[in-house]
């Protein structure tokens, strides 16, 4: 929980990636500590909040877990607009999902926020025996694209907390000056801003 005097960062985080790569499972593992074998399909996107406390800051995540079929991807800009962090997920046992992840990364590069913290995540690391994407290749692509790389398993919980801690740390490092997607809350929200909207 928030410590007094500690800086509070409100950050919008979006998960992108092919259907079935495990985005929803990742989020649920992070938030509820659980893994479900049958996930209800998400329409549009699902919203979650989670708070992480670091020594240097408390990060309040607004998480958008985007969803669905290819045709739903046309809705994605609404979810990554104004985001402070983006997690692009692929499935290490499927080259197709890795290629799609690359396209998401390129799309994100064009959306304009220079400070966007980006993570490339190879999920389903428990399926190592079916691996189609080598870690080195992904690592290299991540480096070239200015993002960090991690392999996770929502099933075994491997690296899930680490992933979100790493994002939180990076957000804390770059937090001020105020950039889009991040709001610093040292004091109560600006009253003027509220009143200008009434009437």
């Amino acid at each position, binding site marked *: 929980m928030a410590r007094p005097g500690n800086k509070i960062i409100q950050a919008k985080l979006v998960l992108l990636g092919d259907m079935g790569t495990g985005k929803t499972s990742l989020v649920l593992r992070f938030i509820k500590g659980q893994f479900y074998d049958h996930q*209800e399909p998400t*329409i549009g996107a699902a919203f979650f909040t989670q708070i992480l406390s670091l020594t240097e800051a408390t990060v309040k995540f607004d998480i958008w877990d985007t*969803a669905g*079929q290819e*045709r739903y991807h*046309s809705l994605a800009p609404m979810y990554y607009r104004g985001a402070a962090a983006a997690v692009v997920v692929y499935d290490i046992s499927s080259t197709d999902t890795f290629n799609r992840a*690359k396209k998401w990364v390129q*799309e994100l590069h064009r959306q304009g926020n220079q400070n966007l913290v980006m993570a490339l995540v190879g999920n389903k690391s428990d399926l190592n025996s079916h691996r189609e994407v080598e870690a080195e290749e992904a690592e290299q692509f991540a480096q070239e694209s200015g993002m960090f790389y991690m392999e996770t398993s929502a099933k075994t919980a491997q690296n899930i907390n680490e992933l979100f801690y790493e994002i939180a740390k990076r957000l804390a490092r770059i937090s001020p000056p105020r950039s889009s997607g991040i709001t610093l809350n040292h004091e109560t929200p600006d009253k003027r*801003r509220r009143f200008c*909207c009434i009437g």
Partner: protein
Amino acid sequence: MYGTQSKRDLALELQAQVPFLRPSIHARRANITVKFQDLYGFTVEGNVDDVNVLNEVREKVREQGRVWWALEASKGANWYLQPQISSISEGIALKSSLKLSNFANAITLKKLIRKGIPPVLRPKVWFSLSGAAKKKSTVPESYYDDLIKAVEDKVTPATKQIDHDLPRTFPGHPWLDTPEGHAALRRVLVGYSFRDSDVGYCQGLNYVAALLLLVMKTEEDAFWMLAVLLENVLVSDCYTNNLSGCHVEQRVFKDLLVKQCPRIASHLEALEFDVSLVATEWFLCLFSKSLPSETTLRVWDVLFYEGAKVLFHVALAIFKMKEEELLLTHHVGDVINILQKTTHHLFDPDELLTVAFDKVGSMTTNAISKHRKKQEPAVMAELDQRLRRLNSLRVDDK
């Protein structure tokens, strides 16, 4: 056919046999959350007040039933077929040769439908008033059976996605989540994916078709309701490749919110909250994932008679009902929580529909069409730009 009888019995049985839940004083004090089955077999969680509301709703449904029966007795069984007012497909309000008595019937009918169609009459009334009956009558008797037989063993991306979604559609429902329910839903969705290959299968339709199956007498009628919905009632291209119709509706909705709820609109804009973040699901699932079942179906009662503008009325009403609370929010998460909590607890359909039609300013289908025309070019340009960007990326890859 296809065992649909048992499903239908389920809805009727629930209506007839579920005893009024009488929460004890102790439960009331403790404000306990209880789980119970609603009119259509969905498990809902609510507090004691919610249970009371649902009991009142059951009583009102019975009353409405008596009103409808009385009208049938005085005007004849199919009296509501005479006023040719709906004509969603033709887009005209009234046929010119209409007699005065028919005009009176049309007014009565509109009011009556906004107060709700009794669940037992829903299959019949929806089927005729939506235009589904007419649609069905233009093809051979055996159309549906032939279609289902012809596509039974075909495998396409759409059928794969459908198979993936079947067990995840309203899991735990006493009929939908059984092998029989899955099979019926599969036939309707797969059948439709072949009828219109531009739509194929779009996630969201699984929920819509599932509810249609629960309401309609037969699986075949559910199929025709889905067809009339997608082909005549809703704006076109809501569910096709890049959901362009859905994008248009969202832009129109934002325009309407600014006009009808200016305080909320500017407050949410200041919070950088895009209302489509929540409204997209409302429009694609026609509220079936957000509102309790009877409330959703009451929205659909009006939707099938008055057309797609009803969705705007209802969406605006949800915001309007919570205006004061929403104006106090400082944070996106709070807005979402308020809206979710509100929709999930709208057990009294009249509470919502009264706001939707009395407090939200009236909008003609014509005016909405103009709004849509205005937004279309921008949506097309935006989608086109994104597509071209993606294609250029594809070239970069090589």
